[in-house]
């Protein structure tokens, strides 16, 4: 049975799968630690995926695509901030509304511009280059090192490295920077933060904007790196999975990242479980194997990580009064 699994492949796939979730989950960390529930990750991801693909196609330059994705995702984040902070609207409703609207509008626009059934044209060569280690060649004679530098660590696009580089950065920003301190205070007890002279609204706006930027990378990664085109509804539930990782990780950056990697890992493992004969069970049907990451999540949430604690002010609009 074990010879059926290629663990090196699983590890590489984990790295490749993770950025979509990492970026979105980090966006969630910022929004939710500041006290705003972000159910709109899915919608922002989809909107930026479309924009990134469309602009990359139009300019034949992926960087412009990413920039346009950031712009759109941030516009949605601004609207979200306006609704959550100024309007004191229901944040859950906003998220659901944006997800639905993005799913519809991206299709309509894609169809309007490209007439390809909600698809964008292929981006062809206008994609990110794979980054190879300059010294990788010299190791290529040693298989283990060749694998390590050529496939495991090297040979990914810039967004992959960015996603992983962000893990410590975001941990530091949340826990060891002024912005992070204020963010946490605002999400935990906005009245206390306000009394300490902190502008609650401004802090939340900032948090959502940072989240907007991060989430747009997720969409860009889906469209430009992973697929090479936009397709309707291509976010395929990844925004919700990212939220799950966030709850799983207790709203902390490092644990959340671990959650994302876990999802990536099980997704990769699941791919290889199809067609493998397990001793005593035999082959498990493909449709049942699809459950694996979700069942693992439920088990982990129920067993190891019972009682995750959300930021206290999460979801409640801030009104100045006791």
């Amino acid at each position, binding site marked *: 049975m074990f010879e059926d699994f290629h663990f090196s492949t699983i590890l590489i796939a984990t790295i490749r799968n993770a950025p979509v979730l990492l970026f979105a989950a980090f966006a969630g960390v910022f929004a939710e630690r500041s006290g705003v529930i972000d159910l709109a990750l899915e919608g922002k991801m989809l909107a930026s995926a479309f924009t990134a693909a469309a602009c990359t196609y139009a300019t034949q330059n992926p960087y412009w695509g990413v920039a346009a994705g950031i712009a759109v995702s941030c516009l949605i984040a601004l609207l979200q901030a306006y609704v959550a902070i100024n309007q004191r609207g229901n944040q859950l409703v906003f998220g659901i509304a944006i997800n639905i609207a993005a799913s519809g509008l991206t299709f*309509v626009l894609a169809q309007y511009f490209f007439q390809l059934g909600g698809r964008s044209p292929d981006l062809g060569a206008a994609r990110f280059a794979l980054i190879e280690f300059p010294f990788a060649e010299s190791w290529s004679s040693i298989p283990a090192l060749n694998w390590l530098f050529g496939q495991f660590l090297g040979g990914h696009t810039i967004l992959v490295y960015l996603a992983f580089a962000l893990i410590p950065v975001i941990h530091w920003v949340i826990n060891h920077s002024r912005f992070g301190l204020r963010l946490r205070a605002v999400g935990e007890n906005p009245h206390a933060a306000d009394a300490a002279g902190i502008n609650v609204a401004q802090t939340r706006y900032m948090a959502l904007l940072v989240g907007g930027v991060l989430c747009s990378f997720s969409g860009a990664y889906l469209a430009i790196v992973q697929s090479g085109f936009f397709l309707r509804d291509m976010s395929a539930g990844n925004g919700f999975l990212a939220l799950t990782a966030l709850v799983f990780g207790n709203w902390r950056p490092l644990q959340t990242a671990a959650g994302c990697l876990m999802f990536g890992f099980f997704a990769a493992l699941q791919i290889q479980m199809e067609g493998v004969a397990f001793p005593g069970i035999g082959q498990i049907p493909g449709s049942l194997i699809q459950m694996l990451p979700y069942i693992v999540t439920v088990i982990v949430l129920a067993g190891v990580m019972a009682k995750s604690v959300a930021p206290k002010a999460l979801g409640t609009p801030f009104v100045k009064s006791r």
Partner: protein
Amino acid sequence: MNSDLPRWATNIALPFLNLLSALFVAAAVIYLLGENPGEALGILIKSALGNAEGLGYTLFYTTTFVLTGLSVSVAMQAGLFNIGSDGQMYLGGLGLTLMMLQFDAILPAWLLIPLAFIGAAVFGAAWAFLPGYLQARRGSHVVVTTIMFNFIAASLMNFIIITYLIPAGEQNPASRMFAEAAWLPRLNDWLPVLGDTPLNISFLVAIFGLVIYGFVVWRTRWGYALRAAGKNAHAAHYAGISMASVIIITMMASGGLAGLAALNSISGSTHYLSLNFTAGAGFVGIAVALMGRQQPIGIFLAAALFGILMQGGFDLSFEKPNIPPETFIFIQGMIILFCGAMENMYAPALSRLLKLNWRKNV
């Protein structure tokens, strides 16, 4: 919030203004697509409400959304955000299908229909039990577990339908069709003007459900316990209300209601179980519950709004090929945004306007 506004303003004027804003955005998109928004709206309204058959379809969709909306609302009353109604509805469909496949040849209609009810409700409730149990006993976030259970339901149903339910030699991943005895009576049996619409007695079930819901939640001790647990867990504890059992029972009730939604789609319309038959109705239920503020009348109106969009939008895209059906998904989103998340946008302006008027009169 806007307690200085009269009731008619908060209950009628504001929602109306919000709906208007959403329609305005929709009109802009339709205009950009090269069609006349006014004409489009006319077609939409006419086909959804303007004739008996259209109305029948609108109410048919409304029925499903009322039931999933109730499912989400019940859970919300207890402070639980059940995102899993879709999966619970899916499983409810399995429950009633298994019952029907087993008995539709041997039992008469008056037994089959209650059996379908029980099958749908029990399976829906059972699928919601585990997330409820895990929340109550292990503190696992019900939001996350129900999302997971939706995915798990999809896999499980895929497996069951493909492996056990497809009749030999068939292409369509669906069960066989039930015998006619297992079909829910359609309302056009009594109201022939409805034409060939699948509107069936589950519409009455949904209306009855709304009434029961309103009564149980606001006028019985269970409803009291439910709301108390949802608003303040400490006080519920102080009052001797078992949070754990409230959570588990509420989730099961929620799942049962979602399961019943399958009744309308399957027993009332298609008469067979097919892959992904819920078509996201459980998620529309979330929007319905939120927009309807978990109040019976609100749930009905919100469900009807989505029913109108579903029916009218479909006809509109049929008549105007420039407007793809997905446009209405976008419009749905806009309506939820304006009527649900930005519901108070016009409150300050309206109250200023009213005050101005009032001063003039004085």
